[in-house]
């Protein structure tokens, strides 16, 4: 029994140690928000996701691609859950090149649910050339690709400031408190009232940042809700079976005069 306690103690200590070591690396005070998707039962806020898509489509999408998302994802469970018709309507706003047709010609058509998000540039070179030499990263997995995740993206969006006196910035470079090196080539993207939300929510800078980050968190981890749900069940199941096995082990070992 004593060994058992030691073992469990060790397991938990190691978890804490692991997470501490790895989490506590970056101590720069990032801005945070009460993300609904954090925690053991975390779920996305449906309306925040829908508003977030609107911010992405109206603000970010002019430079940032999301090449791993398809329009059908917008109507899938665990995501923004637009209705199928809404998602179809969204897709129909875009044109994609398809083909070759039977005559061997490429043609353009309206996007369908099965199409990937249309990208703003033909290729990376064009993206860089159109943005003053800076590559606007694809945003599909951006939240997972940055240390600090959702908090970091949120902080950068709200971290624009006038540079401290004495710092001179080159043309087309902006000062941001949270970006590595404090210099960013993306101009401040969000201004109060920049989008007009369909659901009447007031489009403050913070609100838009929160919504778009929620949307990006979903796009980086589209199965997060399923993961949390299955995880909870799996762990409960494991705990129950562990307890059962523990008692059968006790029973079996009671035949032997020894400690387990």
């Amino acid at each position: 029994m004593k060994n058992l306690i030691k073992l469990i103690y060790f397991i938990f200590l190691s978890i804490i140690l692991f997470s501490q070591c790895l989490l506590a690396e970056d101590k720069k005070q990032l801005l945070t928000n009460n993300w609904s998707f954090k925690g053991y039962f975390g779920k996305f806020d449906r309306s925040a996701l829908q508003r977030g898509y609107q911010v992405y489509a109206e603000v970010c999408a002019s430079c940032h691609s999301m090449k791993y998302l398809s329009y059908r994802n917008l109507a899938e469970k665990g995501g923004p859950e637009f209705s199928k018709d809404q998602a179809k309507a969204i897709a129909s706003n875009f044109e994609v090149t398809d083909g070759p047709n039977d005559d061997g010609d490429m043609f353009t058509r309206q996007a369908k649910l099965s199409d990937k998000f249309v990208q703003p540039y033909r290729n990376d070179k064009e993206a860089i050339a159109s943005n003053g030499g800076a590559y606007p990263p694809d945003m599909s997995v951006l939240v997972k690709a940055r240390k600090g995740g959702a908090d970091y993206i949120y902080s950068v969006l709200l971290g624009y400031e006038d540079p401290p006196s004495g710092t001179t910035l080159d043309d087309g470079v902006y000062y941001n408190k949270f970006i590595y090196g404090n210099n960013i080539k993306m101009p401040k993207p969000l201004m109060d009232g920049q989008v007009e939300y369909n659901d009447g929510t007031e489009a403050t800078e913070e609100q838009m940042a929160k919504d778009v980050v929620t949307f990006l968190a979903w796009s980086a981890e589209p199965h997060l809700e399923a993961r949390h749900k299955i995880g909870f069940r799996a762990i409960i199941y494991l705990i129950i079976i562990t307890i059962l096995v523990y008692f059968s082990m006790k029973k079996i070992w009671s035949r032997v005069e020894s400690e387990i």
Partner: protein
Amino acid sequence: MSDHNYVPSSKLGKWFNDRLPLLSLSAHLREYPTPKNLNYWWTFGGILTFCLITQIITGIILGMHYVAHVDFAFDSVEHIMRDVNYGWLIRYVHANGASMFFLAVYIHIFRALYYGSYKSPREIIWIIGMIIYLLMMMTAFMGYVLPWGQMSFWGATVITSLFSAIPMFGESVTNWLWGGFAVGNPTLTRFFSLHYLLPFLILGLVILHIWALHVPGNNNPIGIELKKPSKDTVPFHPYIVIKDLFALLLFLIVFAFFVFYSPNILGHSDNYIEANPMITPAHIVPEWYLLPFYAILRSVPDKLLGVVAMFASIFILVILPWLDTSKIRSAIFRPIYKQLYWILVLDVIILGYMGAMPAEGTYLLIARLATTYYFVHFLIILPILGKKEKTLPVPPSITEPVLADAPNPQMFKKQEE
């Protein structure tokens, strides 16, 4: 051994067993006499077998959807995460499974160090184990390259460049490994091929590892030879089976916690950026389980000597049975070794921590001291200590105390806590 006279009860069973004695083998595995005082540190062998099988099964499924090509590898991983049914689950189990595998193997190795399981007559078990460990590191490293993220690419570049330190042939060896003049598509495809192959070699070696174990039988916490079977042993089934199962389930709870609630915590965020040979990440760090060796590599100022030191730190473990001269196996009866053991554990943890830090200033100094101590422990302290140390009296069996009126060894352990 008792199972040699095993006779199947059915006629068909007997006919089959005479031609292929699988039933005898199964009987042997069930009856295999195991010391009854094994503690929970001994359950990691079973846990490791489980880890290997899990990695192989999830890996085969991932291999059905993965595309080993520099233009498609990253996309195909995202495809697995998004579009393959439960692909996210399989990939997270595989990725975190690697970490869990190493967590378990480190506990398994350090258990062997504490209880002297590597000593005669178990040297071959130990050496096979070390080869498995080496193959595990190679497999894990190549697996980390496959998603073709930034850390994959740059980790591969750093590690394969180590071979350029070889005098004379360095450059040609690295070019040969790469299949070109830099890490590229040929590197990725061969890594995929080898990453698929090596686990099956590991599986074969695991079978040899267990076979070699079944010749002398398990070591045990007090490290004495037991008469088998006797009052001191229990049959493997059901006693050890149920205990291993219980420990495995506890382990699985931890595993599930990582998979479902922090699946990316043990990875590096840069690996969600597609590999780009034109942009070097600020810090290139290997996965956590390779950090101690990375620290040793970097603490030596000379590249070649650094590589030599890194490989030596593993090779030294292979010859450990001959470096440790003590006849007593278990640290329970070696008061000084026991202290030094914990210092070594601490030393390796420090090395791991330093491996994650930039190699400069105080970090580098600490890493150098820790590296030195690592080698001193194995090369100087252990050979001398074995000859000089005053060990405690060892009991003749698990059930019998050392002397008629002395407390039994189980009591010893309790007093020390």
